[in-house]
């Protein structure tokens, strides 16, 4: 289809049609329309000749080897050159994947680009529901009143009892909050002023993989590994095919992960080296190809670097895995680690301490000062947002607006998140809102132009309907997956179709943008999770 990059083919078709029509027409020379069409046809004809000649020139230059660097040798710019941003120079010799599909929701309230180190948060929590694949009631190792150090075991799962879950900070356990059916929702720790970490005997640099795994399980650092398919905490008995790390987030109002490793580059490198010891395969790093200059992540060694250029969800590790080497069950099981997870491993192996220190974004239009702050995993949301007096009519999310979990100001940041978003609730009816949208709202549809960044609300903008889906999913899904059909096969429990259509490659965050764009307001993330659960039970 290379010849269709230039519009000559289409134009010549049009011209042929016009000329044959005119040859049959019995119109007199006085007809103005006839002259107009003739003039147009002539123009098109000459354009076509020039364009064909131009194409030949390009082909010839390639054949002769003059066009070595794939630059455009023709007279006319290629359509793709006109409409896409230019690739930065440093990407010249890198693996770059350009994703055309996707959408960056232009929200107001982006976090400022510096890190606030002064924020004082006193309460942190370990939340068992953050980790997929566990039993609802874990076995507790601590009681209210116990003093813990960072890295001390708080609980472990009754089935996967080798995996230990550790305290993010040192301090005193002040509450164990229970959720539905007496499941444990939060283990709250009041942090010490001076943080202390549990002491570790690090395994030798040439220790076997089994020893390393045992150490990691015992250290409490194991939960940073998540396993695809299903996005569950990695099974210690499974050796992953490859390990994937996404070093950027394209989610709306997401934290800038470059800030996370500023000054901690060596720890990050150590973390990557540890990952290499855990797999026979490769460690892939997904990097942001939209950066104008190389970042600290570009300097990381011992990992396969892949650059991704494109709108959200290009930063999702699932999308990157899909384009690098799709995951699947059995021997295609892979692990994913986020940047904070790599840093945690780096701290552990370089400095011998357990540290969940991370830079998170406090973002959203209702905040007076959206910014990045340095804190630890599981920080209390109310304390994170202490500088703002928020009204009751806001929603506080752990995570981004597409995949986040709704929490009150008494909630805690989830383990795998590095973002808190505050959103205005949209609980106000809008007259003819569906017909004449006066309040700004995001849309991938050209019928609702979004000219500038705007304050989003949580209004549903419509009611749930059966799937009447034109092409919204395919506009935002940069994966070779038929989302709608997959969802339908999940709903009817058609295992074969689910497998064939790629359910193993997806987790909730990958279909979140499709759910956002869905005209029928179908809960795709929920449907997908049900499908994944069914597959997991069956498998």
């Amino acid at each position: 289809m290379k010849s269709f990059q230039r519009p000559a083919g289409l134009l010549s078709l049009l011209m042929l049609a016009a000329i044959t029509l005119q040859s049959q027409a019995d119109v007199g020379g006085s007809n103005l329309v006839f002259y107009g069409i003739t003039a147009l046809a002539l123009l098109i004809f000459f354009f076509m000749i020039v364009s064909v000649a131009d194409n030949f020139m390009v082909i010839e230059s390639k054949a002769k080897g003059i066009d070595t660097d794939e630059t455009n040798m023709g007279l006319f710019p290629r359509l793709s050159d006109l409409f896409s941003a230019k690739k930065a120079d440093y990407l010249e010799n890198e693996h770059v994947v350009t994703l055309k599909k996707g959408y960056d929701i232009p929200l107001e309230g982006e976090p400022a680009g510096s890190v606030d180190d002064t924020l004082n948060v006193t309460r942190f929590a370990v939340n068992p529901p953050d980790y997929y694949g566990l039993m609802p009631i874990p076995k507790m190792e601590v009681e209210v009143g116990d003093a813990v150090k960072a890295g001390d075991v708080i609980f472990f799962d009754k089935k996967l009892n080798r995996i230990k879950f550790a305290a993010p900070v040192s301090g005193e356990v002040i509450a164990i909050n229970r959720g539905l059916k007496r499941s444990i929702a939060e283990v709250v720790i009041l942090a010490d002023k001076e943080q202390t970490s549990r002491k570790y005997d690090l395994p030798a640099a040439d220790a076997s993989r089994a020893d390393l795994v045992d150490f990691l399980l015992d250290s409490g650092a194991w939960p940073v590994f998540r396993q695809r398919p299903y996005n569950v905490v990695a099974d210690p008995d499974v050796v992953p095919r490859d390990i994937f790390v996404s070093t950027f987030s394209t989610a709306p109002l997401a934290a800038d992960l470059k800030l996370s490793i500023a000054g901690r580059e060596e720890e990050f490198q150590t973390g990557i080296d540890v990952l290499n010891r855990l797999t026979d395969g490769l460690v892939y790093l997904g990097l942001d190809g939209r950066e104008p200059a190389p970042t600290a992540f570009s300097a990381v060694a011992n990992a396969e670097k892949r650059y991704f250029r494109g709108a959200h969800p290009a930063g999702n590790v699932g999308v990157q895995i899909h384009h690098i080497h799709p995951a699947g069950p059995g021997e295609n099981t892979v692990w994913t680690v986020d940047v904070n997870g790599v840093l945690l491993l780096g701290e552990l192996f370089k400095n011998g301490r357990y540290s969940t220190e991370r830079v998170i974004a406090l973002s959203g239009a209702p905040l007076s000062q959206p910014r990045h702050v340095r804190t630890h995993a599981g920080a209390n949301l109310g304390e994170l947002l202490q500088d703002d007096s928020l009204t009751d009519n806001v929603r506080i999310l752990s995570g981004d607006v597409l995949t986040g979990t709704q929490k009150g100001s008494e909630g805690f940041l989830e383990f795998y998140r590095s973002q808190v978003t505050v959103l205005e609730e949209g609980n106000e009816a809008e007259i003819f809102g569906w017909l004449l949208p006066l309040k700004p709202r995001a849309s991938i549809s050209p019928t609702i132009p979004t000219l500038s960044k705007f304050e989003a609300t949580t209004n549903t903008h419509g009611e749930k309907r059966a799937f009447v889906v034109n092409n919204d999913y395919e506009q935002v899904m940069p994966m070779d997956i038929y989302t709608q059909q997959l969802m339908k096969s999940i709903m009817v429990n058609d295992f074969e179709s689910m497998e064939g259509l790629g359910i193993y490659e997806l987790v909730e965050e990958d279909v979140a943008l499709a759910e956002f764009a869905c005209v029928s307001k179908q809960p795709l993330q929920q449907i997908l999770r049900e499908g994944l659960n069914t597959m997991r039970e069956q498998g």
Partner: protein
Amino acid sequence: MKALHDFVKKFEPDHSNKLAHTTYDAFYTFLFQPDTVTKGGVHITDGMDLKRLMVHVVLALQLLYVFGTWNIGHQHFVALGQYNGFLEGFHLKIIYGLIQILPIFVVTHVVGLGIEFIYAARKGHSVEEGFLVSGALIPLIMPPDIPLVWLAVSIIFAVVLGKEAFGGTGMNIWNVALLARVFIFFAYPTTISGDEVWVAGIVKEGTEFYGATYGWAHGFFDWIFSGLGWSTFGEGGMAVADGWTGATPLGLAAKGGWDAVTQYYTESQIFWGNIPGSIGESSAPLIIIGMIFLMVTRIADYRVIVGGLIGFMVGALMLNAIAPPVLTDDTPGIFQFMAIHPLRQMIMGSFLFAITFMATDPVSSADTPTGKWIYGFLIAFIGIIIRVLNPAYPEGWMLSILLMNTFAPLIDHYVYQANVKRRVKRTAAMAKQRDELITKRIENPEIVSPSNV
């Protein structure tokens, strides 16, 4: 606005009366975008919902409604040999058109929406928007003189058996508007076919055509117009103009090719659409405006439309190739019909209308991008063959679209199967790449991995 909202909320009936509540809910959600907020899943959603999607199709049809209204009147008076100029007797043409089209529009919506409301109440969900578009399309594809009872029966058939039986909007297999049309076509074949049905207010006695006598509504407007000193409808019942047959361009083309068409109509007349036909199908430029509007706003998928245009050209060129190179008066009509230039075929009949508004229905069309190309192409390709080669009736879009509606899931099935295979292949190819990279890495002693410990 808050006050208005509270005022409307006062009338909300309780849930004990299901039909009343469903009806209230339908009107309430029409007036207001409700104050519901997201729960779980995404926290912000796209501003596009089904109502907005559907209403854009209705918007794209508005020009056709205006033109169709005028054209009903225009064709009527041209048949009677009066007011041949476009703007002559403009008020009479518009009023005549309105008197014809308004009852059709009202009956369509009362019957169709009535069924929707009853089913929504019975099934206990809110009224779905599907009929917004079907209800706007159905009047445009009916002949202007359609008896209202038939119209009502056809809509009941289409909505109950074509949609609600399958579970409502989003579940139907066939295009609802076309089902209504095809029901009329097959249930009342003798009266719907023939030449005179495409012009309103013409009756046939023996072999002679007369204008029908005007009714009380026309009399009422005559009273106003005569007061204003404008021309009036009069009594009606006069004979048609000399040589008028009421034949549509396609009807003529089927008998004698393009030469027969040009005896009655000019090319530009056919293009602009002041010819007899269904109410909204005739004006090519206005349909093209709607087509571009729907493609640019991505309400309709351009793949179906462009695929259809290609399929049409291919099919028509193929028929051109089959037709004998030299046409004489003795050439049978079917060959004359085949020999018509594709672009002329395109502006005659309702191809553009069908491919823009009927084929692109997201529910009954193919789901996959590849499938949509095939689906659009085959609709046009099969449609032109039905139009030209079927001896009974010189048009084929409703049949070809319904046929392809039936086969759309099959097309999609093969696209999905191809996807499944492609993904397996791709994974295998990537596994090979990975092996090469690993071999390279093992040679690098700096990287500690389980394989070189």
